Each structure stands twice: as structure tokens, then as C-alpha cells.
């Protein structure tokens, strides 16, 4: 998808920018001549127009996109069916909840390890965002 900014839009931004700068200059010039009424009016108009042109210019810029497809780390908990020993490791392809594995329990040395749980942990900041009004 090509990024094309409308020339009409660009022209509006340039014109408002030039006018805002000119107006600000006129305002400073009027203040230096002790004409505070004209000075304040020109400055107000100039600053307002500068804000508008800055806003319009920002709209034309494409922000850096975060794709949001980052893999979230998943923990697999292995539990010994005999002595209850638990071991946590990273998820591997082929893991599923209640799968009996060939792993040996480091505590009782029996081949009775099974996958007890697979889940991901969400950071505190994200959790707090969920319940903003609780």
C-alpha cells in the first residue's frame, strides 16, 4: 500500500504554517512598538494556527506499528504422581495437560511425571489495566 499524501492537504499545512510564523513575527513586532493590543491578537492567532498546522502534519505521519504477534512465554508444570514433586519448564511442542511423560522424578526416581498445568503469566501492569475501576 503506497503512502501518498494529498497535495491539497500538504498545501493547507504549508499555508497555515507560513501564516502562523508570519503572524507570530507581526505580534512580536507589535509588542516591540508598544502596541500590546495588536501584539496579543497576532500572537494568539499565530500560536493557534501553528498548533493546527502541527496537528495536521502529525496526522500525515505513519506511526511505527507494533505488530502484536510476540510469542508469550508459556510454562509447563510437571508433577510426580507418586510424591507430588513439581518441576516448571518452558512449553515444548507436543506438551498437553495430563500427558504422561517418560521423565524421571528427581525426588523418588520413578517414571511417574505427568504434565499438570500449562499456562502463561500476565505482568502486573497488564493485570492492573484490566480492572482500572475496581
Amino acid at each position: 500500500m503506497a503512502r501518498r499524501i494529498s497535495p491539497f492537504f500538504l498545501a493547507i499545512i504549508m499555508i497555515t504554517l507560513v501564516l502562523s510564523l508570519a503572524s507570530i513575527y507581526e505580534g512580536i513586532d507589535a509588542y516591540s512598538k508598544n502596541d500590546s493590543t495588536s501584539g496579543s491578537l497576532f500572537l494568539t492567532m499565530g500560536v493557534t494556527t501553528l498548533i493546527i498546522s502541527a496537528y495536521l502534519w502529525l496526522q500525515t505521519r505513519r506511526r511505527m506499528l507494533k505488530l502484536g504477534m510476540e510469542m508469550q512465554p508459556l510454562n509447563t508444570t510437571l508433577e510426580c504422581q507418586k510424591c507430588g514433586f513439581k518441576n516448571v519448564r518452558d512449553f515444548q511442542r507436543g506438551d498437553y495437560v495430563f500427558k504422561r511423560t517418560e521423565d524421571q522424578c528427581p525426588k523418588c526416581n520413578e517414571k511417574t511425571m505427568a504434565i499438570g498445568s500449562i499456562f502463561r503469566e500476565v505482568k502486573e501492569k497488564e493485570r492492573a489495566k484490566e480492572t482500572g475501576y475496581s
Partner: protein
Amino acid sequence: MLTTQQIAQLLPGQDNVFSWVLQIVFLGIFVVFMFYGQRIQMYIMIREVEGSLFKLKMLRDEGRKMAVSAINEIGKPQFDPTALVDRFLEYFAITPVDLDPSGIIWRLEHLLDVRDIRFKDDVKLMAPQADETQINNLENTLEAALALNIIYKIIRHFYLLGKKTLSLYIIMQVQMVLPLIMKEAEAFSSALKAFQLGQPIGDGAGALVAAKLMRDYEKTKVEKDVVVAKVPIEGRTAYVLKAEGPGGNVGKPGEAIKQILEQNEGKISLAIVIDAAGKLEGEKTGEVAEGIGVAIGGPEVDKYKVEETALKYKVPINAIVIKEDVGDAVSPMRKEIFDAVDGVIDRIKRLIKERTKEGDSIIIAGIGNTIGIGQ
């Protein structure tokens, strides 16, 4: 009628020609914004939609690439499956006629069955070396990629239509729903990786409850892709059922419940259906709630079957739901959801003790996609 001198007196800096020009130009700009302000606003909205559309395209393309790489890795086809994947991503299903709604449930069920068989056959063609669990997982992966493709195409359609017609209302409507659509698209792209690796997702909460209850008991396969175990709970006999895992499967729990009710001639005191439910903003993920009714999502064919059979035998149906966000439902399962399972089991036991007596038969149905969850 005002004279030039009187107009000049209204404007400050009246003795400076440049100030006069500046004043008039500002007045001109004010008039331009008055007449063309709406168009300028529309261009700004179009730019915003274009930015989101770009992101949707990236998600779609990334999803397609992941699906192709998953098929190559797991299915080991002898040919390049890209063309078949592209064909899959363009699939559509036409809903049955609802002008005469009589019999629509059965017509819808037939269409869904045909769709399911067609999808499975296509995946088998793309991935000849995959086993049944892997085929189910690949099917889920491709369906997530299909969903991303559809979302992208629909938003692109309205974007181009609004741009072509310069209709503020078309663009405004797209821009207003865009945050929700982007949230859904990001959820699907997160789901793609989970399906590819066979990780359990939030939607499997109901299935996990059933799996935990039936863990050490003998299971039998009933209706399409559903397993049932007879589990003694608090002196009652519970028919605990879930879709057969650990492949990505939702099965037909409605048909299974109907079969059990018919086999027992309706002598079931209580049916409890457990599923994941959407939470409202401000609610905590993993909150558990109880209610009445058939908590089965999807096209409502299974829900209808359970309601009809329960009505025939006057069986009360209770529901227990685990609250989660739409993103969490299709993303890898969160710890809060996993921890909620024990709380659900306590509630089931409490319900059974309150609403049935010893020796009764009950049904406990765990609803959800059983990917990454065995039994």
C-alpha cells in the same frame, strides 16, 4: 453600509498593509475551514483507517506465512502447499435460508458437517504425514488465518468504498468500530501461534474442568469427537463429557448430552454445563459465575439439541462460566483461568449436594476447544 475607513478601524494594525493582508488571509482560512472542514476531517479519518489497514495486512500475511510453515513442518508434503493454503483462505459458507425458519437448525447442522469434512479433507491433502491430533491443530491454525483474511478484506472494502465515494458516514463508521476490530484481529494472530504449537487456549476452560474430573476414570467415545466418563461425585453418578483432546476440537457436546439423556430415558436429575464467557470491562479474568441455561457457544445447533431434549424430559440445566476477555479466549491459557478450575469444581460439588440426592445421575459437560488438553 460600512465605509472602507470604518472597516479599517475594526482591524488592529490598520496603518500596516501587511497586517491588513494577514487579517484578510486569516478570515479566508476561517471561511475555508467552515466549508471544507468536514472534508479535512474525513481525510484525517481515512489516514487513520489506512494505518490500521496496513497493520491488518501485515497480520494477515504473517498468519498465512505461519500456516504454510506449520504445514511444511508437520505435514511434510511432497509439493508446495502455498496454493492450497491460499485457496483455503478464500473459503466461504452460505447460511441456510431463514425466510422459512422451519427446520433451519437441521439444515445448518448439515452445512456445518459438510464444511467440517471438507476442511479436514483439505488439511489431510496438504499435510499427508500429520496424525489426527496434528490435523485438528492445523485445521484450527488455518481457520484463524482465514478469519484474519476475512477481517482484512472487509475493512479494506469499506476503506476503498469510503475513499471512492468520499462518504463521511462510511469512513466514520469504519473508524468507530476499528479499535474493537483491531483487538479481535490481534487475538486471532495470537491464537495462530497457539494452534500451531498445540498450546491450550482460554476457551478450553470448560474442557479443562471436565478433564480434571474424569482424569483417573475409564473414558468411552460417544458422538463425534466427544469422550465420556462415569465419575462418582458426592455419592452421585456423574456423566462427565468433553471434546476429545489434545488436538484442537470442539466436538458435538450437544449431541452427546442428547444421547446420554435418551439412553438414561431422562432419568438425569441435573445437567451442569461449564464454558468460558465474555467478561465486561472492569471484571477480573478468571471470575466464576453461575446461572441457568445451556452455556454452549458457536452456531447454536448443539444448544438447540440440549434445550429440546431437556424440555422433553424436564431436566434442569445449570451453567457455570469462567469469565475472560475475547482476546484471552483464543490466546494461550492464562494462570488466572487455570487457577479458576479448582473453584469451579468446588461449585459443582456444592451444586450437586444442594440440588440432587445420593444415588442420582447427573451430566457435567465441559464445553470448549480442547487443544492442548488431554483427558
